[in-house]
Structures are given as C-alpha cells and as structure tokens.
C-alpha cells in the first residue's frame, strides 16, 4: 500500500497569493453597525440601546433598508423554494403513513426535495411533488458548508464532462452518473443497481475531489466553478488533486478563468 508523509510546514495565508483587498464592511459581534434607526434588521444583527449591533463575525450586506450580516459559516437556514438533499433519519409511525410511504421511502434513503414552508422555530417542511425530486440512487455525497453554495435559478446540473450534480442549498452535494434515458412520461424512481462503468466512476471521483478542493480554498460552488476546476485538474491524477501544491495550481487557474469569464 502506498503511503505519503509530509513534514509540517508553515502555511502562507492564502489571501497573500491573491493580493486583493476586501472592500467590504467587516464586523465582529458587539460592533455597532449603525445608529440610524431607519433600517430594518436582518440576520446576524440585534437591536441594543438604539443601535444596530452585529451578532456574528462577517460582512455587512445592505439591500435598500434591510441590513444583515452574512457570517462566514452558518447553519443552514431554510427558505421557501430551496432545493435540499438529505438522508431520512426518522419517520412518523402512523397507520396511513405505513400503508402509503413505506413502499417508496425508507429510513436511510437519500432524497432530494424542495422546501415548501418554514416554521417559526426554524423547522422546514419539504415536498417532492415533482418528478425531478425523490429518491437518489447510486452516486457520491459531499457535505460542505451551506454558505459556499451559490444561489442559482436551478440546482440540478448536467455537466458536459459526463456526470450530473445536485447542489443542495443545505450544503449536501450529490454527484451521480447522468441517466441515459430521460423518459418524459415515465418518470418516478427506478432502482438502478447496475454497476457504473469505470469511465463514469472516474469522472465522478474527479468531480468529488474538485468540490472538496473548492471548499478547502473557500470558493463558491456553482456549475461553472466546478466545471472549470474539473478541466484544470485534468492534467493531474485524481488522487493528486488534493495535495497542497497541486491544489494551489488548480485553484489559481480556476480563479483566472472565472475572472476572465466575468470581465
């Protein structure tokens, strides 16, 4: 079995290599954001003695009259319309439930769903009322921080490299082989337990390593960034992608391409 060992090395702060300066208004808990009472307070702030005070460490975001502080790392806050990927851990045990659902969804299954409603204590109600949601078959799950998943129009992407990905707003990323037959009327879940081909599996492993790389470098996850990262990683072997020197190389190239695309 091949083993690799490294000696400890002083890490350079990553921001040095970028050389950029952040123009955002950064706050820490206890900082006064503003004393103007005309603003509505959003997440990450609280009212104290006629002042708006930050309650998390992050950057201040202002949308018209709403001020909120976006923290670096947050627990997922559900919003109506979000796509989530999750695993069933527990279910209600009632008679109708037994008859109806047990046949389809069991404890331990991975599903994709949409948020229908949010309760006042933070609990969310999910629905799978569309053929694109439902039970997930073979694939790879990557758990990342929810704050790194970019909000887009759609979270289901079929990447040109040969695999598909679901970017759950709750930070659960599901990478799976693109289904060959897209039946419009058939739909529903067909348990496909056939072994996935080696080529597909390699694409999926590479994508998974790319997602992990983007997360360690704290870059936002969306279809373009994942695709560019995948293409930048092609010259290297899949198992080398997560080595520090190679990570730096790949991420630099990815950032460059993303900047060119924006500008």
């Amino acid at each position: 079995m091949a083993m690799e060992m490294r000696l400890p090395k002083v890490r350079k702060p990553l921001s040095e290599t970028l050389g950029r300066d952040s123009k955002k208004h950064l706050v820490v808990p206890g900082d006064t954001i503003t004393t103007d009472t005309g603003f509505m307070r959003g997440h990450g702030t609280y009212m104290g003695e006629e002042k708006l005070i930050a309650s998390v460490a992050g950057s201040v975001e202002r949308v018209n009259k709403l001020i909120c502080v976006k923290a670096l790392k947050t627990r997922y806050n559900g919003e109506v319309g979000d796509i989530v990927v999750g695993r069933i851990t527990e279910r209600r045990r009632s008679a109708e439930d037994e008859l109806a659902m047990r046949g389809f969804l069991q404890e331990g299954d991975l599903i994709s769903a949409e948020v229908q409603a949010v309760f006042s204590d933070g609990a969310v109600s999910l629905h799978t009322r569309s053929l694109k949601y439902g039970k997930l078959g073979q694939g790879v799950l990557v758990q990342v921080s929810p704050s790194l998943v970019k909000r887009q129009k759609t979270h289901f992407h079929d990447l040109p490299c040969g695999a598909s990905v679901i970017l759950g707003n709750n930070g659960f990323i599901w990478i799976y082989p693109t289904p060959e037959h897209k039946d419009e009327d058939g739909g529903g879940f067909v348990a496909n337990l056939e072994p996935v081909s080696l080529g597909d599996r390699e694409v999926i492993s590479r994508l998974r390593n790319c997602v992990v790389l983007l997360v360690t470098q704290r870059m936002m996850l969306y279809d373009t960034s994942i695709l560019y990262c995948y293409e930048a990683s092609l010259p290297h072997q899949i198992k080398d992608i997560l080595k520090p020197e190679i990570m730096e190389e790949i991420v630099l190239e990815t950032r460059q391409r993303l900047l060119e695309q924006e500008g």
Partner: protein
Amino acid sequence: MAGLELLSDQGYRIDGRRAGELRKIQARMGVFAQADGSAYIEQGNTKALAVVYGPHEIRGSRSRALPDRALVNCQYSSATFSTGERKRRPHGDRKSCEMGLQLRQTFEAAILTKLHPRSQIDIYVQVLQADGGTYAACVNAATLAVMDAGIPMRDFVCACSAGFVDGTALADLSHVEEAAGGPQLALALLPASGQIALLEMDARLHEDHLEQVLEAAAQAARDVHTLLDQVVRQHVQEASILLGD
C-alpha cells in the same frame, strides 16, 4: 517557600511582568475542519482548545428541549499531561463538572439562544497545558470557537483572573502565583457593554480591596478583548478575500 517574592520592590512579578500586565496571547480560529467551530488559544504557557457543535437537534431525551431557546451544553476536560503531576481523571471529576457549569452560565448569557428554539449547542473545551488562568483561557477559546461556528452572540466574552498581593492587584495569574495561596478572582466580561457574565472568587478578601481587584480584572479582560478582536477581524478579512465579491 522562602524567598518566593510574588511582587518585588520595583514592582516586578516572578516572570518579570508588571502588576497589570497580561501574558503573551496567541490565538487561532478554525483549527478543525470537521467541527462547526473551533479555536486554539495560548495565554503564556496555558494552552486551551475549544470545539463547538451546533445548533443541532437535542441528543438524547427530547424532554430536555426548551421550547423557546437553545440548550447550551459545556464540557470541560483537562489532559492528563496538562499539569505538573500526571492527572488521573481527565474529566468527570468535581472540578471539571464545576467548570462545565460555570462555562455554561457564562455562555448562556452571551449567546442569543432565543434564535434557535428546541436545539442544542455543544461547547467542548480541552486544556492542554495548565499554567494558571485555565478558566479564562477556556472562556476566551470558547468565544472564538462560537464565533467561528457562526452562532449569534451578544458580544465577545473575555475573561481574566486577578489576585491581590502586598496591596497591589495582579492581573492574569500564573500557576506559581495561584499556588501561593492568595485571594484570586475570575471575571468574564462582555466588553462593549461592560456587563459581567461571571464573577467567581473562592477566597477571603477584605471588601475594601474588592473594587481594586475587580477593576484590575476588568481592565485585563478589556485588554484581552483588544487582542481577540484583532484575531477575529484578521480571520474574517482573510476569508472574505478568498470568497471574492
């Protein structure tokens, strides 16, 4: 012990500090990727590590869930190699339980628990090397870890210990100064408002001296705040540069 002078005539302590001077503090946030929040702090030779998980669903009995706020659960543990003599029980002994309760009291005052009803926030603190001021180091490390996890807090919680020798209040006691047997006070402060989260003293001190010692501890806590504030700002700055616009 003969010749152990805690405060010399020129005003120097055993390790060369002045009466109100703090030990060197170094801290870092986000040391563990797996935990929701983590931090490491060194105050002189005292080293503490804090890890935060949460907010998440209540583990164990659902009946403990509070309907309107989050439950804060703190556990204090000191490594067997942390003190001069090897400790037998790292956690579960009286001192650890008491420290856990004190930390819980401190953080229930600072964390905005009303925002996460029916959930639980776990704070685990581990002391790797104990050279006095362990409660203070734990509180400081836990504050950074809670901020790293993105859990909303009223303000920083900064803590420091203080003692009283020869009519002078000393701030940030080391193990030798604590072991000398004088009165010691531990103070946890919310710096922006000046409110006290926890004040603990387990010795005899004349009431005339209390204000002086309290003020020394409060000033030291404010100094700690200046340092921790810098650490957090730098961390946020770096992360926001990486995330881009």
